[in-house]
């Protein structure tokens, strides 16, 4: 009898992620692809690339059950089910780190904080989806000012000797503030640390809303930004727990866990 595989596809605004689990729940493939304009194209690309990593799985059409998530989840029309990214991030995190009780999911276009119960279910959530400040897009804009890639920007902020506060919370105003700080010949690493601090403060207020409880972790692409993790750790006065898998695929992993539960 052929092996059963279960898929999760997280169609984000910046990247598409796909995860495939086997019938024992082991992750056999994961992939991240840049988002296309059409979310359906993104999902097909991510899933096909993930399937190519699994011997014996020719196409996503052969998946026993597929769950779509992310902002473009409704465009994954071929999925068996769509589940909100909030539930998927909660489930994905719980599946790899059951001790986590609080998640900060920093995606390309929004920030969410999620509080979990002991079984990976969502207790509360808060989101900032009305402005770009504090999101992946914000970091992209900031690193552009420094003429750096995101990882270089992150590394730069870690070298700061002091933090120059960036007061503006709006992406557009922050951009002009950072430009003027650079023009005044302030050390770039200190300004970069100020940017990380500003975003962390924003996350902190969202965390307060849901009643932050240890352990706290960060998911989404921005979790790879070590400068941000350092600043957040300081502001929440608590360790940010690292995850044993790529934090960017957590949403897709949660979707795949749901798929396995429903399709098994």
């Amino acid at each position, binding site marked *: 009898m052929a092996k059963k595989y279960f898929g999760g596809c997280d169609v984000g605004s910046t990247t598409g992620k796909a995860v495939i689990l086997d019938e024992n729940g082991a992750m056999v493939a994961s992939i991240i692809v840049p988002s296309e304009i059409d979310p359906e194209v993104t999902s097909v690309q991510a899933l096909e690339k993930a399937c190519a990593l699994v011997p014996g799985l020719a196409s996503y059409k052969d998946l026993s059950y597929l769950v779509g998530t992310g902002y473009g989840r409704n465009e994954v029309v071929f999925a068996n089910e769509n*589940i*909100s990214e909030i539930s998927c991030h909660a489930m994905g995190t719980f599946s790899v780190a059951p001790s986590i009780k609080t998640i900060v999911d920093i995606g390309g276009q929004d920030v969410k904080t999620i509080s979990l119960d002991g079984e990976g279910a969502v207790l509360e959530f808060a989101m900032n989806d009305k402005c770009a400040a504090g999101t992946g897009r914000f970091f992209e804009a900031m690193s552009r000012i420094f003429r750096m890639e995101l990882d270089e920007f992150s590394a730069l902020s870690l070298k700061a000797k002091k933090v120059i506060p960036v007061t503006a919370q709006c992406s557009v105003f922050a951009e002009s503030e950072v430009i003027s700080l650079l023009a005044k010949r302030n050390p770039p690493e200190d300004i970069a640390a100020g940017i990380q601090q500003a975003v962390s403060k924003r996350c902190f207020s969202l965390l307060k809303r*849901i009643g932050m409880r240890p352990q706290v972790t960060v998911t989404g692409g921005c979790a790879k930004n070590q400068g941000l993790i350092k600043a957040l750790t300081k502001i929440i006065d608590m360790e940010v727990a690292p995850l044993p898998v790529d934090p960017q695929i957590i949403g897709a992993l949660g979707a795949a866990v749901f798929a396995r539960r429903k399709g098994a």
Partner: protein
Amino acid sequence: MKDVLADARLVLVKVLDETKGFWRHSLAGYLIASRNLIDARVFVKYWALTWLSILKLILGLILRRGPLALIRLLVHYPWIFILLRVNGLMNRMARGRTGIFHEALCLTVHSIAVAVVDQLHDIAYHLESMIINEDLVPSDIAGAMGLKAWIMEIMGIMLPILKPEADLQYIDAAENAGLNPDACSLPKAAVGMVLKRHIPKGVAIVSSNMPCDAGAGSYAMIQREYRLPIYRLDAPFHFYNERAEQHFARDLMAMIAWLEEHTPGRMDWDRLREICRGRNRMLELELELWDMIRARPAPLAGEAVILSHLWHFNVTPGHPKAVNHYERLVKLARKNLEKGEPATKHERYRAVLWNPPFCHFVDLFKWAEQTYGLIMINDSMTYNHHAPIDTTSPETMLRGLSRTILQGPMVRHTRGPAENYLDDIFRMVKQFDLDMVWVANHVGCKTGQAMNGILREKCRAKKIPLLILDYDLMDPRIVSHDNMVRQVEFFMDNVMKAPRLNQ
């Protein structure tokens, strides 16, 4: 031939698309969509009665004052055209609901429509005895003095219910005139209507320091614009005490003396007694209604409960028509309760809405009901629980009215310690066996915003699911309807794990 058929199909689709508003709001559209003859009969009855009442006003005006009077009225108050959508509102609310709940909704919209017609009648015939009455100042007093009270904020509330974007021109006008853009959009709408001279001027203004700074501040602009004498009531910050009640009752007495000086009104204490008795009867009936809707599933809910209070307790308290409406509403609820018939067959969840209602998106209740089986049992504006007014003497009546106002919604919730706000919510959760609390997080309400953090912590401790739904009271540009729906979806899907009814 194939091409002709395809073209015809395209034309048909286009026609249907362009007339979808008509089909959604018209009697014809309702009748086509209706699958229940009894419901259709009820709808047609109230549809006709409402039109009859409107036509009576129009014909009366033409016959008594001539067609020019009617034209003048429409030119001065162009929002009357929006009011003509009232049967469309009834259509929006009643469609998809059946039985007694359907009838209660039709009855409620109709009763409000008739009361609005009465208000228009007052504008047409009694401007010389009309006063501008702030919504939290008890209009019972004006009624007892033979004055016509125009509740300043009421059209700002009612118009977006009929047409979501109705208040925008007024909000913009107020902001352009210098009213703080961060202020609540309700006083902004009221000020905008005054700036455009779309509110009857009357002869005097009675206002107060309730419920918030924006509301109180707006009356400075209104007074400046209309150049009318104004009396401002002073509601104490701490009011659960004898001294505060006495202070407010004395203030009401001073307001009566002031009105006698500045208007043709004269206090008739017997008339006030009648009004207070009517108010007491309404209260009695409302308490009976609340008692009935505690049953699970509820025999009535949603807009029938909420809109009834919104209009009748604030604009026409104690009026025989308002009493009659509550008697009929209670009768309908009792009928359902006795038959074991729920308001909606699909009741799965029960919630209350805290803070001011979604005026420009009342349809959200029906959507939640039909998507998740969620019924809105009651709301904070309706939840005015208090003792009946003692009608023994003028003093006791004023004391009773003072208590009703000071301990009533908005006033109680924006004054004193946080408990004044929180206790009612948790009392409601118990009383109505709720599954969750919805907070209408009006972004223009600073007091409400300040309470959210405390409320979150309390709900968390009591394990009550809480949805804090961002929106603006009157302005759908701040948070769109789509966004509001999405917030509910996120909450229901992720926190409540609620399956949709169609799943």
